[in-house]
């Protein structure tokens, strides 16, 4: 019963998060002094030279429709939600007219998800293993060294590290490409190898910075749990040290780490967006960058809405899986 209440409240939060997030994305451009339609008209006129007044009016009308800026604010609001929820449609892209924004996003999403999920998961697992070793044996020399290294690396944002990595491993030592350029036909081995080759450097930057925090917090958690009564009693029962480390210390310490992962996903995503842009990695980040450079309003709104939805959904997935990992919540 209490579990049902828990589940219901989590789902309610999820819906609310989506609502607040999408509403924010909706209102930001509408409360700005700049009008995306006028901005676009200005660009077109600057590029295309003279236009008849009627032509300008016609273009203005069609842009207003394309941008979903027709009608009252409330009508726009309802229309915006309807398009997202039921049609999964953000209109056509202007930079790559007439490709729909949803197609562009669908092409970019696997790249972002592939890079981000792999790198984040890898960083999380690696960080927790190192943190566990460092925390469970916190009197050892290596555990102090590991912690010091983590403390130094952790606060540096991905994109700064990405820059340093680009300078060292793409420019000074040209092992990896400076910007992503994938070769081969999708589905072939060559394509796959090329994807991996191009993803290693951005991936490494996410892993190196990401895992520092997991080391630091896992070390703190596991050295605290190593002092718990149940670890003491397990030791006195003659349970072997490795088993104590895995089943007693790690199993308990990893639970808060899962919650922390859910809370930090937004921040991780922020960093990854910029990393993608720096590496010209063809994911959501680069798509957003392209939209900004080309003043592609629909693409921008679409990609940003999707970012918010993706992060909120991933967070909620972790939150919903959590009770199945922690028996204290499951069997209340």
């Amino acid at each position, binding site marked *: 019963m209490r579990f049902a209440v828990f589940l219901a409240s989590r789902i309610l939060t999820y819906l609310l998060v989506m609502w607040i997030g999408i509403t924010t994305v909706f209102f930001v451009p509408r409360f700005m002094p700049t009008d995306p339609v006028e901005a676009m008209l200005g660009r077109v006129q600057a590029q295309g030279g003279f236009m008849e007044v009627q032509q300008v009016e016609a273009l203005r009308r069609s842009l207003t429709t394309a941008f979903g800026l027709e009608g009252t604010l409330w009508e726009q609001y309802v229309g915006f939600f309807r398009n997202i929820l039921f049609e999964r449609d953000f209109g056509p892209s202007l930079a790559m007219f007439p490709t729909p924004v949803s197609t562009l996003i669908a092409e970019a999403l696997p790249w972002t998800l592939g890079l981000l999920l792999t790198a984040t998961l890898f960083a999380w697992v690696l960080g927790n293993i190192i943190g566990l070793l460092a925390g469970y044996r916190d009197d050892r020399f290596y555990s102090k060294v590991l912690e010091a290294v983590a403390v130094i690396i952790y606060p540096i944002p991905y994109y700064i590290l990405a820059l340093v990595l680009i300078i060292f491993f793409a420019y000074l030592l040209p092992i990896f490409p400076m910007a992503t350029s994938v070769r081969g036909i999708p589905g072939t081995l060559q394509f796959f190898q090329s994807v991996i080759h191009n993803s290693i450097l951005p991936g490494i930057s996410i892993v190196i910075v990401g895992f520092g925090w997991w080391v630091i917090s896992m070390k703190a958690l596991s050295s605290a749990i190593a002092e718990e009564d149940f670890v003491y009693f397990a*030791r006195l*029962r003659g349970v072997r040290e490795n*088993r104590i480390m895995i089943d007693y210390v790690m199993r308990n310490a990893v639970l808060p780490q899962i919650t922390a992962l859910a809370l930090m996903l937004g921040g991780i995503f922020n960093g990854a967006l910029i990393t993608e842009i720096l590496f010209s990695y063809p994911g959501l980040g680069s798509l957003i960058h392209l939209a900004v450079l080309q003043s592609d309003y629909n693409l921008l709104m679409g990609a940003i809405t999707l970012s918010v939805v993706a992060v909120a959904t991933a967070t909620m997935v972790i939150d919903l899986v959590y009770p199945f990992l922690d028996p204290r919540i499951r069997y209340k």
Partner: protein
Amino acid sequence: MMQLTDVKAYYDTPRGPVQAVDGVTLDIRENEVLSIAGESGCGKSTLVKVLYDYMPHPLRLVSGEILATIPQDNGETLTLREHEIRDYWWRHISYIPQASMSILNPVVRVERQFYDAAGGRYARGNRRELRKQIISYLRELELPEEVLTSFPHQLSGGMRQRVIVALATFMHPKIVLGDEPTTALDVVVQRGILTMLTRLQRQMQNTLVIVSHDMGVHYQISDRMAIMYAGKIVELGPTEALFHGAMHPYTDNLIKSLPRIGDRDVRTGIPGAPPSLLNPPKGCRFEARCPHVMDVCRREEPPFHEERDDHMVACHLF
């Protein structure tokens, strides 16, 4: 069963060694319930750790001999010295800790925690066999089978402590050490646990060593009793004899401080505090609080000797 000869175990601290167990000589017999009493900080818990050969830093065995002679099922006797005992944990010697909320791993089912202790002694294939044995043992102890599939937080405090006792005694160890096993439980539950412990001891005919600061617990279950004060055993004898003919003034005080039915006035504790174990007095350690203190008490340490039949004491009065 176990002989301790002049055992000294100190805690190394930055301010010097804390002499928590300082020259204890004690023999623990087969098939008996021995209880160790004393105020908190007198070294009784440390003594149990020494008996159990669990001496993590900063605790250190300074000197003395520990000898365990454990009768085997095949009739032979296993002789263990200090630092060998830990290899036989759970199998021949086991430990029951004080009850607490987090004495069992909160995220693992009880069943698994039984297996963990079995460690490598049971290969994976024998899990089912082991499970059967555990279930029949639980039934013997009148514990429901469901505790196995439960998580610790689903059990009541009393049930958790029963599970702990079951865990500790499952292998029918020859020695069971209980360090305040009933402290922090309510009175009714306490009684239940004590009954369970004594019943098990009678069935298994093994040795039960219980540490408690609660004199009532000692009176209820023990055959022999040791009184500890400031790192030393000051009196040791059959429980009955000790309760009715205490020799050491400290023992006398402890027993007198017990409430009795029909009491009118409030009972007072012993005035004063135990000496610092960093720098204990040269003579008798109780001299500062003793009502019968003499000159010799301040100069010389009283020898621990047999004064009456099987009743030892360390006091200059005797």
